[in-house]
């Protein structure tokens, strides 16, 4: 459909990583997003990683104001937004300054030449013009006066020059679309739809896009053209989804699968707020979203709703979880279903709120007073957030327990193509509310015991409104069975053991070893490191070495076969975006000499970094 038909002279590459960078006001997220969409429609596999500045609006042109979006497209299945980008689009000097270091040697730099004036150079801390010195000698430079060309192209549309200037990101997009042979129509259609009714803007953006596209042709950039063929992907319908949206949809799905109304009690916090935003747009699924006064009220309201028979959820990030500990403890004691979603971010304290980290695992396991065990699960990819939200609900409902669902800032915002599941294939979540007496007392009278247990050791979910079985529950220790307050020591010991056993007995799928079962080295990961580990393992194995990978979704309880799996490998490494937390649990549980591989710089592992680790560990540190 485009020039990239067979027989073209355009060289092929298997994959390409492009990084769009510019000032916060330059619309880089949107540009990246559109490029991604076009690539998705074209059929590439892909993964994205947006990175925003911490300030709402840092001063224009400043280093702090640089906003970036990385997209990795490929002709085969990939797992991450890529290591070093091959192409950097830098819309101003500040973007060039902050982002250049990440580019591969020999990579392509595309700049908006118009912005390289003294004022902007000074703001970026350049004492010279990098377009002229040696700064870029190691790269292939495309220096296009995007602003002026855009203005020029738009001059007959009746758009004010300042407004026309705003369309320069579409110029960049047009240029990249030409260079990498992206389909053009979807973007034009998107412009029409997005700015519907604002005709001048539609015209300016269309014009800028076309001008950029034409620029490639006319400026003879043909030798920059490469093509990344569509990937072979399983048949089906795809959408490009980020983790927070997938998670929100997974919660909606859990509501539909269980037939329960959803109640989200939440307090805004980066990077979790978007789940609140997304769910508040879908109330027609019987979704109530309640923006509480703080995180404690958020979980409290969700717990209240759960007590009332709703699917109670609270979403937050690290600092918010630190506030919810006491109420989680109550939920443990009440044995009610509840989902606590933690989109982890850089800590401690306020830390790096817009950067990713996964250092809340131990808090998830142990951050409550007393013995208060709780299932913990973690999503591994953006789309997996959908599945794990359902899994969290399934566990919470079936075992009447609060469940901690972990994601992180990286999963939250990055996206990947998701083969949409057939809604009919999703397994229903059976619900059973207690409906009447379940016990006979000493006098032969029928009574209701709120802590009588089923085969899973779960107590009845007995919701207010049910006739006859009125009862009281609370955070004081209860007599097992009757649920009456009990200060009896033996019963307390029994209840503590029972609460522990109830969680420990939850069946979770065995882990599967990917890679070489007979390797020397096993990498054990959890959460969002999956992509980087899988990619690194593939690269290393492609180079002929042996290595294995196991990835945990269920962190509490752990898969039953994990100990055996671990014991099969002489070396076990645990890459984590923290100082080593899962590794502590593995060492404790299985007494294996697993060792940590840490990254805590606010960014996910790249496959390259882990590849290097593996090579070093397997005896080659080339």
């Amino acid at each position, binding site marked *: 459909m485009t020039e990239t038909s067979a027989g073209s002279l355009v060289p092929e590459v298997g994959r390409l990583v492009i990084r769009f960078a510019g000032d916060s006001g330059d619309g880089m997220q949107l540009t990246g997003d559109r490029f991604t969409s076009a690539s998705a*429609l074209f*059929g590439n596999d892909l993964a994205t990683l947006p990175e925003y500045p911490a300030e709402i609006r840092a001063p224009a042109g400043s280093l702090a104001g640089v906003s970036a979006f990385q997209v990795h497209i490929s002709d085969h299945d990939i797992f991450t937004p890529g290591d070093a980008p091959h192409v950097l689009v830098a819309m101003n000097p500040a973007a060039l300054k902050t982002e250049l270091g990440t580019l591969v040697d020999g990579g392509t730099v595309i700049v908006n030449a118009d912005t390289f004036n003294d004022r902007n150079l000074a703001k970026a801390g350049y004492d010279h013009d990098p377009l002229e010195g040696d700064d870029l000698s190691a790269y292939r430079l495309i220096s296009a006066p995007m602003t002026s060309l855009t203005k020029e192209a738009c001059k007959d549309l009746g758009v004010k020059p300042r407004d026309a200037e705003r369309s320069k990101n579409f110029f960049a997009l047009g240029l990249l679309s030409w260079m990498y042979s992206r389909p053009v129509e979807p973007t034009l259609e998107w412009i029409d739809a997005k700015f519907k009714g604002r005709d001048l803007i539609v015209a300016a953006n269309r014009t800028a896009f076309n001008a950029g596209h034409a620029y490639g042709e006319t400026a003879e950039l043909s030798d920059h053209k490469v093509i990344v063929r569509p990937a072979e*992907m399983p*048949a*089906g*319908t795809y*959408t*490009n*989804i980020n983790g927070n*949206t997938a998670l929100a*949809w997974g919660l*909606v*799905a859990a509501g*539909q699968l269980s037939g*329960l*109304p959803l109640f989200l009690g939440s307090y805004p916090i980066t990077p979790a707020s978007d789940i609140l935003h997304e769910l508040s747009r*879908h*109330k*027609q*699924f*019987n*979704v*109530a979203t309640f923006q*509480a*006064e*703080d995180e*404690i*009220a958020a979980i*409290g*309201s969700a*717990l*209240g*709703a*759960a*007590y*009332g*028979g*709703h699917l109670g959820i609270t979403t937050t990030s690290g600092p918010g979880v630190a506030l919810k500990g006491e*109420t989680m403890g*109550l939920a443990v004691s*009440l044995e009610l279903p509840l989902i606590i979603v933690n989109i982890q971010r850089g800590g401690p304290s306020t830390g790096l709120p817009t950067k990713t980290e996964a250092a809340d695992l131990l808090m998830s396991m142990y951050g409550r007073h007393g013995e208060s065990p709780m299932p913990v699960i973690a999503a591994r990819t953006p789309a997996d957030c959908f599945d794990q939200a359902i899994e969290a609900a399934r566990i919470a409902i079936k075992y009447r327990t609060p469940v901690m669902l972990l994601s992180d800032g990286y999963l939250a915002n990055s996206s990947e193509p998701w083969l*949409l599941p057939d*809604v009919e294939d999703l397994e229903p979540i059976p*619900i059973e*509310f207690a*409906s009447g007496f379940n016990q006979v007392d000493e006098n032969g009278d029928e009574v209701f015991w709120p802590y009588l247990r089923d085969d899973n050791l779960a107590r009845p979910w007995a*919701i*207010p*409104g*049910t*006739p006859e079985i*009125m*009862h*009281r*529950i*609370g*955070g*004081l220790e209860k007599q097992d069975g009757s649920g*009456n*307050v009990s200060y009896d020591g033996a019963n307390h010991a029994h209840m503590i053991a029972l609460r522990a056993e109830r969680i420990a007995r939850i069946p979770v799928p065995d882990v599967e070893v990917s890679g070489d079962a007979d390797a020397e080295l096993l990498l054990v990961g959890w959460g969002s490191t999956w992509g980087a580990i899988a990619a690194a393992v593939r690269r290393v194995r492609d180079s002929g070495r042996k290595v294995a990978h196991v990835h945990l979704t269920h962190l509490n309880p752990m898969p039953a076969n994990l100990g055996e799996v671990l014991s099969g490998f002489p070396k076990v490494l645990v890459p984590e975006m923290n100082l080593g937390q899962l590794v502590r649990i593995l060492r404790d549980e299985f007494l294996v000499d697993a060792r940590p591989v840490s990254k805590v710089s606010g960014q996910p592992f790249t496959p390259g970094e882990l590849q290097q680790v593996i090579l070093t560990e397997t005896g080659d540190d080339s």
Partner: protein
Amino acid sequence: MTDTLLPDGGTEDVPVTKRADWQSDQEVRWCPGCGDYSILTALQLLMPDLGVRREKTVFVSGIGCAARFPYYMNTYGMHSIHGRAPAIATGLALARPDLDVWVVGGDGDMLSIGGNHLIHALRRNIDINILLFNNQIYGLTKGQFSPTSERGKVTKSSPIGSCATPFNPVSLAIGAEASFVARTHDMDRHHMQEMFRRAYEHPGASIVEVYQNCNVFNDGAFETITKKDVRDDMLIPLRHGEPIRFGTEGQFGVARHDGGVEIVEVADVGVDALLVHDEARTDPSTAFALSRLAEGPDRPTPVGVFRAVDRGEYGEAMRGQVDQMESDRGNGDLRALLHSLPTWTV
């Protein structure tokens, strides 16, 4: 909004109940002589009259002596954690408008650690009935001053007196946009029942401050105003539509003065000068002024309904949005949701 799985809550007539039906099988464990007993009795005796179902009634509490209340009611109940009952009740009431949700707690529970949840529940006008048992002390933890203890109060944690000005719970509630605020005390069953009933009937959040005697750690705190022999002179009953008047012979009254209200002798000013109580004023200023009459329970103190205005309950609005989205977009269609972003097919 169709909660198909939830119990439909009986369409038959509300069964006739008596006090015993509302008593749980749990032994009541307050100190002998504690004012909490009379509040419990008042409520247990009132419930049959309200024409409500036990299974549709829920008591949510925090922690404290007062917070043990749910255990003694043969209804649903949750004895949660310190200070969080208003938040938990908010979720429950929003999720389940078919229920009557009551919140019970002490002055520490609801005004100290739980103060924020309380004022937000009042502001939002969540449909819950809040009973604040104010004994001006921390009972369960054995006697520290609370946010309603008077300045200078000597307790375990203030051996030479507390330094803090107390909250006036009625003023605070009114300042927090409360739509229903009342005060009563544990020595007058009839009055308590009237207030509880009014709270129950009010749409949205209602708060009733109950002066409650803790005979172990703060005995007699309200004696100066609630004892039978002083009551007439020390309690100022607020009755909607009536001039505010009190005293054994009705010799005292309340009149406006310099933007606030003051106590006057009827003989001095004449009945017509008395303030006629209007609990339904949209402007809460007069209700606020009334709350300032007594700084502590040592001066004549108003009891009754300070304010009762219907200003729209939060849950109704919230559920209205579900309905609105349902009617705008139809019932949620999961497949459509999953396909709502651009898709492509391989």
